[in-house]
């Protein structure tokens, strides 16, 4: 298989999608009974055990709760990478990589937005990708 044909493995599966304009969006779950939202999506509510759950498209921007530049991780991950927790407005905290950012420019609680990014590769060398976040450019773009 040539490199061009080798499709990246998407770690997040159906839990990430793209809007019509290409914006990367996380898909969580919302409980139809108690309203609890969760990411990654679940088929049972961790609050009330209801199975009446629906997919919910989450906000594409959130606040950077904390981060770390990771230099040691199992094989496959492209090192170093920036690991982070991002708080989305729906009271959902997401673990993700921060990409396209100088670590020195990061600040606690800064606004970040979704991206897709290649994060590493499996044993056969096939790349895997998933959602990630990047700092929102100040002043818009």
């Amino acid at each position, binding site marked *: 298989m040539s490199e061009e044909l080798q499709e990246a493995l998407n*770690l*997040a599966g159906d839990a990430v999608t793209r809007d019509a304009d290409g914006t990367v969006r996380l898909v969580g779950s919302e409980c139809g009974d108690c309203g*609890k*939202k*969760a*990411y*990654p999506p679940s088929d049972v509510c*961790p609050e009330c055990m209801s199975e009446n759950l629906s997919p919910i498209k989450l906000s594409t921007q959130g606040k950077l*709760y*904390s*981060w*770390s*530049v*990771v*230099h*040691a*991780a*199992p094989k496959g*991950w492209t090192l*170093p*990478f920036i*690991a*982070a*927790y991002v*708080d989305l407005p729906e*009271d*959902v*905290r997401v*673990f*993700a*990589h921060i990409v396209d950012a100088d*670590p020195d420019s990061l600040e*606690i609680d800064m606004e970040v937005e979704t991206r897709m990014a290649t*994060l*590493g590769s499996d044993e056969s060398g096939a790349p895997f990708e*998933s959602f990630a976040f990047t700092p929102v450019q100040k002043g818009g773009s």
Partner: protein
Amino acid sequence: MRDVAIVGAGMVPFGKYQEKTLADIAWPAVKQAVEDAGIKKTDIEATYCGTALGGMMAGQRILKKLGITGLPIINIENACSSSSTAFREGWISVAAGVYDAVLVIGVEKLTKFGGGTLPLEKEDWEVSHGLVMPALYAMRARRYMHEYGLTENDIADVSVKARKHGVWNEDAQFRKEVTREEVLASRPVADPLKLFHCCPSGDGAAAVVICSAEKAKQYSASPIKVIGSEINSGKYMTGYRDMTSPEITLRGAKQLYEEAGIGPEDVDLAEVHDAFAIAELLYYEALGFCAKGDAAKLLADGETSVGGKIPVNPSGGLLSKGHPIGSTGVAQIVEIVRQLRGQCGQRQVEGAKVGLTHCTGGGVSGFDHGVCSIHLFAR
């Protein structure tokens, strides 16, 4: 429930024993504990063996070496709290009157994984997206630095203290002092944490013999009483949570102090789960040794060093003694037993009457920690 006491304690020096089997690493610790108790092996009625990654039937593999067989052997996995959980199960069995005397073992051989970060469960969402334990603690550290003005020097000083205590402990994996500058110059693992902010990977085993307080006197002139035993799982949270405040430890400590009828001011020394240097600072606060935000000052004032008001990790802690994960809970208890008996030489906490052990276990997303077990002991 009956009163319970520890009558025997043993451990092997933590280190790298790649050539040895798990059973060969562990049996000398068990033999030491049994001989320390002076108990006949036929009087041991059950064994609780904690290991996280030691594979099936670790207890049987160890005990057949010593011929302690034909009794109930219960193997327990609870990540880094595997053997603190095993201890609690053993305590329950004796306190409830099911058995009069039981053996508790903690064992792990991490060298079989060839080093690196601890292998976590890949079915977990965050693990499958690259979370490793140092990164989790590093993110706690960064948030705490932001909210409370903690500096990299403060975090480094935890490692400096741990290594200083480790010099005095012949069972410690690291027995050489380090300076703040050496800690900060060690290679980055998960910024702001450097290599010397992280516990080493290694192998080891520890064991204790516990029995009813009533029977304890026949084995030991100085039995160590178990005056409180607590275990909890973390609360699963999908939303925002304060990572500067370890909720499971706070909750557990409160419950334990109430149960034991004492407060943090009554504790003379503690062995806490300093898998990464930042953790020890968070636990000073969660265990009530100082107010929120004051951990760095408590350390800088020397209060948590041997000779201070509340020495923490006189053994060297996980940072210096080592952290073969399933062994840690019982190894912490072995240190407290030896301290309360006055057997610790240069690292002895003078006049210690009450000791605390605190052991957590993590690696599952959505929890502060998956498990935390805290115990109180008195002479």
